[in-house]
């Protein structure tokens, strides 16, 4: 149903301590955003993509498809930033007249947009590295170890479980409606969708009641306490995370000193 989730459980990096993956992903993500350098962004895309595809075993085409997911937002956002409205045409590289003013791109705005575009893709590949190699249950364990509030992690745990049981129900309802021509016109589609949402709501309310009874029978009194899983833990990954990012940072500093902070 949710492919990212499926790949995460099948990842060859699954047994790796989630904390290591989290630290690695977040460190690299921070460096990528902080640096805002074209070359660094590209490097991050390759490092994270490579780790995910080669080490983790996510199929390459799927990784590519995922990179396209935020593309609408990215293109619209970047385009909006690149476009400028000016009084005089000289400021712009290319422009068309509009209501007595000029709309177009400037030199600087284009470079800025390209940087932003790649930075976002670099950051996204860090996110994908994490989500494609770390199943949610492991990530929640890491959250617990990080000392996140207990209620918050418990709620996440429950929401995560419900997502899948509700998705399954939604799927069945959709098929049942579709079989009875529920999506054959725009009007009926709206009606069917509204019915589905309200059915799902009632269902999830009932399910929460039934689950409460079942948990009560196992001694639930308001807190959800469970045993933690054991993970492979090596310092190697922390060292690698620090090393890779130190290299990237050094590279950025070197770049800045050469170009004098221009690029």
């Amino acid at each position, binding site marked *: 149903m949710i492919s990212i989730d499926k790949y995460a459980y099948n990842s060859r990096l699954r047994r790796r301590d989630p904390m290591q993956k989290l630290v690695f992903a977040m460190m690299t993500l921070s460096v990528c955003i902080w640096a805002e350098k074209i070359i660094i962004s590209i490097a991050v895309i390759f490092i994270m993509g490579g780790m995910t595809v080669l080490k983790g075993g996510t199929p390459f085409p799927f990784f590519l498809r995922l990179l396209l997911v935020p593309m609408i937002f990215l293109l619209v956002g970047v385009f909006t930033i690149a476009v400028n409205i000016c009084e005089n045409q000289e400021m712009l590289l290319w422009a068309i007249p509009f209501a007595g003013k000029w709309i177009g791109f400037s030199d600087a705005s284009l470079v800025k947009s390209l940087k932003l575009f790649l930075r976002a893709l670099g950051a996204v590949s860090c996110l994908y590295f994490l989500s494609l190699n770390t199943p949610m249950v492991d990530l929640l364990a890491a959250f617990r170890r990080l000392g996140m509030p207990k209620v918050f992690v418990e709620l996440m745990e429950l929401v995560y479980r419900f997502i899948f049981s509700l998705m399954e129900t939604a799927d069945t309802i959709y098929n049942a*409606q579709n*079989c009875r*021509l529920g999506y*054959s*016109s725009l009007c009926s589609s709206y009606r*069917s969708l509204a019915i589905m949402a309200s059915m799902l709501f009632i269902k999830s309310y009932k399910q929460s009641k039934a689950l409460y009874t079942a948990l009560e029978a196992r001694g639930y009194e308001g807190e959800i306490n469970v045993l933690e899983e054991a993970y492979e833990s090596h310092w190697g990954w922390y060292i690698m995370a620090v090393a890779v990012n130190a290299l990237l940072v050094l590279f950025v500093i070197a770049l800045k000193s050469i170009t004098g902070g221009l690029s």
Partner: protein
Amino acid sequence: MNENILETKDLHYIYADGAVALKGISIGIKKGKCTAVLGANGAGKSTMFLNFNGIYRPSSGQVLFNGKPIDYSRKGLKELRRKIGMVFQDPDNQLFSASVFQDISFGVVNMKLPEKECRRRVDNAMEQIGITHLRDKPTHSLSFGQKKRVAIAGVLAMEPEVLVLDEPTAGLDPIGVSELMKMLRQIQTTLGITVVISTHDIDIVPLYCDYVFVMYHGMMVLEGTPKQVFTQKETIRDINLRLPRIGHLMEILKYKDDFDLDDSINTISEARIALKDWKARYLKR
């Protein structure tokens, strides 16, 4: 009347997440008959059903309705789904409205018929299923068996040519099962609607079905009349199913205890006749 109303040709289906559900199914479902599809959980029965009316599109292979390949255009699908009615396992997932009457009308209203015709069809369907007395009840107050009937009525009101039911007897108590199966049998014979069911309940198959397909891991491993299929005892057991209990008893009596019986017996009434015959023959000796 013996032509195939539904056919599949080398039907393959792979889910978006890569799970292979159907591996080359080629079957023909006879018009006007009651056909059962047997198979363990996860054998692919429901997936195949959803290929029948175009909810799923084959990864490869074909589905033919009335001899013609399915037309997957919007209009074609609309027509197809009207003609192939589908009843799902859990009635709670297919009752869409607060009242029984409204719910049964869901499909008919979507067909954009005149209101009068809609009402006629809904009333008709309720009568055929024997739930006219439930008409004004809220759906959530119904028993499981009643909900199941309302779900069937909602599909029947669209006057389909084929009625496909996924595990119609699951969750019903014994009397509920036999009442439902008798009702389906009646729909099939009096209205001439082709009925296809999937089931785990092996004992009902020889009682109510004309033809059986047996699925295993996305493949069709056996087909034939219940008599023919349940003679393939080895295969049936290999694929995590079992014989009807009466069939099993007859098999043991014949092979282990030297009763001279026909081993294609699967229902109580057949067994009774066979044992009576045997007694008579035995007496004569």
